């Protein structure tokens, strides 16, 4: 049996050997043929006119590991018999050294960004402050011609991204508005804010829970602490918890992110301290459940059905689970106050909860609940920014109607 095996192996390897050598031989033949064909073609066809004015310079607005190559298109690009197919960009660290291919762009393009890696260990590393030379090779069906070698250029990083000026202006304008009105508010000027039904219901909802002797459930949403909606929810929680401390109503906060849990604990502890009831604070009421969307919902639904909280707050970032929570809560007979900046979930909150804070109202809620002049000041600043946006809307529409392109360019943001 074993002999037979080795016999077969020998036959097989012999066969394989013959096959491989045949294959290799054929490959070489073919390659030679191809080369000959190319040489033949070379002698027949004229190479396309080379690109001219090749200029290399540092690529703007970057970390200093990229160069920009610009050239004038080959005279044959788009015209002439030699239809240009592509441009190859070649680079070298000396004008007469070996050039390596860095990239390829189709005909008609006259710029290429040679972007390298910033890690030294990366094969594609492009060192800053080192001179490089470029040439551009124009290709047309197997034949090509090269441009002159460019003058040296080196990459360096920039201190300011010029494409983001619009954002910088927005930051400055917005901060100015906010700071001006904070100062005004500090001086004691009384600021009007219009009533919001959702906010006015908060006191009533907490009061109801106290009367019924049942807990309050506060859901911070599915967001993690790196979302601003979650942070806005912390600021609201801070006010709500202070009230529950005063009313001595327990507040349950199951969380779906451990960092959110930690911040929520700090928030509620601080609120109880401020209300003068540090002993009533129960850390075990603020706990982590799970980070997975629907498992979290299943857990919270269980709490709602079994603990029957008198009031449910849903404030923060919510996704598809919004309706699952809100319907179960309404089934359990709780008063529900919701708010999110996810527009797709607002209809479900509107349908299934008693009060909904829509978008920006969620962010305004802490100022409403706290009524501190400084916070009301930022609210006023926000409104002024909004007024400015509205002015831009009208001006923009007029500019677009009468084709003032410059106005559009004001809002250009480059990344």
């Amino acid at each position, binding site marked *: 049996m074993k002999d037979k095996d080795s016999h077969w192996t020998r036959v097989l390897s012999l066969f394989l050997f013959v096959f491989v050598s045949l294959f290799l031989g054929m490959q070489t033949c073919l390659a030679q043929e191809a080369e000959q064909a190319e040489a033949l073609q070379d002698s027949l066809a004229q190479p396309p006119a080379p690109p001219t004015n090749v200029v290399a310079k540092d690529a703007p607005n970057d970390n200093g590991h990229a160069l920009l190559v610009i050239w004038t298109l080959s005279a044959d690009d788009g015209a002439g018999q030699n239809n240009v197919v592509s441009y190859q960009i070649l680079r070298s660290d000396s004008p007469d050294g070996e050039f390596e291919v860095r990239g390829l762009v189709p005909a008609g393009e006259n710029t290429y960004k040679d972007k390298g890696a910033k890690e030294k260990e990366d094969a594609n590393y492009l060192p800053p402050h080192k001179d490089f030379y470029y040439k551009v090779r124009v290709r047309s069906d197997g034949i090509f011609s090269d441009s002159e070698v460019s003058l040296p250029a080196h990459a360096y990083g920039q201190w300011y991204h010029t494409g983001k000026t619009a*954002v910088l202006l927005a930051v400055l304008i917005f901060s100015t508005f906010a700071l001006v009105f904070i100062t005004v508010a500090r001086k004691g000027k009384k600021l009007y804010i219009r009533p919001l039904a959702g906010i006015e219901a908060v006191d009533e909802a907490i009061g109801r829970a106290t009367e019924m002797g049942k807990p309050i459930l506060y859901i911070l949403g599915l967001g993690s602490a790196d979302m601003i909606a979650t942070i806005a929810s912390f600021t609201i929680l801070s006010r709500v918890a202070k009230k529950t401390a005063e009313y001595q109503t327990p507040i349950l906060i199951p969380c779906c992110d451990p960092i959110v849990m930690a911040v929520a604990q700090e928030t509620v502890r601080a609120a109880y301290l401020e209300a003068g009831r540090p002993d009533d604070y129960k850390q075990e009421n603020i706990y982590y459940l*799970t980070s*997975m969307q629907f498992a979290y919902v299943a857990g919270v639904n269980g709490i709602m059905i079994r603990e029957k909280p008198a009031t449910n707050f849903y404030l923060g970032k919510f996704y598809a689970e919004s309706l699952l929570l809100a319907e179960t809560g309404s089934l359990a007979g709780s008063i529900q106050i919701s708010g999110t900046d996810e527009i797709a979930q607002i209809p479900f909150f509107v349908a299934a909860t008693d009060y909904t804070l829509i978008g920006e109202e969620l962010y305004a809620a802490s100022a409403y609940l706290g009524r501190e002049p400084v916070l009301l000041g930022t609210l006023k600043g*926000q409104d002024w920014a*909004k007024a400015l946006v509205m002015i831009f*809307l009208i001006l923009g*529409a007029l500019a*677009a109607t009468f084709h003032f392109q410059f106005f559009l360019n004001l*809002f250009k943001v480059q990344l």
Partner: protein
Amino acid sequence: MSGEVVGLWIGGILTLGIFSFIYKDNPFYKFSEALFVGVSAGYWFVVTFWQYFLPKLIDNLVLAYTVLTVEGKIDYHWVYLLGGGLGILMLLRLFPSVGWLSRWSLAFIVGTTAGLQFTRYLESNGIIQVKGTILSLFVWGDLNSTIGNIVIVVGTFCGLIYFFFSKEHKGAFGGAARVGVWFLMITFGALFGYTVMSRMSLLIGRMDFLFGNWLGLIK
């Protein structure tokens, strides 16, 4: 019975357990829910461990240590110790006497978020939206677009008026705010109506699973 069949049965039974909740809370649902919460928390922990903890912290520190022992150089990877340190501060929450130290880590995260989102929101929710609303109010020979554009600009304008907090919604201002709410309501209705199809698709998918894959009643 192969593993897949066992899996199918487990899946089918647990699905029924979840569905039973719509009738009322019951032990069957409670069991499925508890299992769900436990398994998902465990899953998330394991994913965090392999996908974040190891590559982001341990691998970098091991690299730093290797460079130190092999080349005798202090390599930049040691900065990950700082991240690890902030993480350990988090764990100090377990000890009430030093728990306040974890606030440094929390502050680190909250501050980072605030700074990062500041520009992000101004850019994507501010500038880009304004830019998108810059529409020509008169499109030559295209009545549809002309009317559409005018309505969009007016609607956005009125919608923003609705969100004004520091001015009473009275008179012309209040009227505009009201128009803004109408626009919001049309959108909310549309979003609701649109979602129905997706939710029904989910239910159809589950029914398929129950009666098709699991029980084999329908093909």
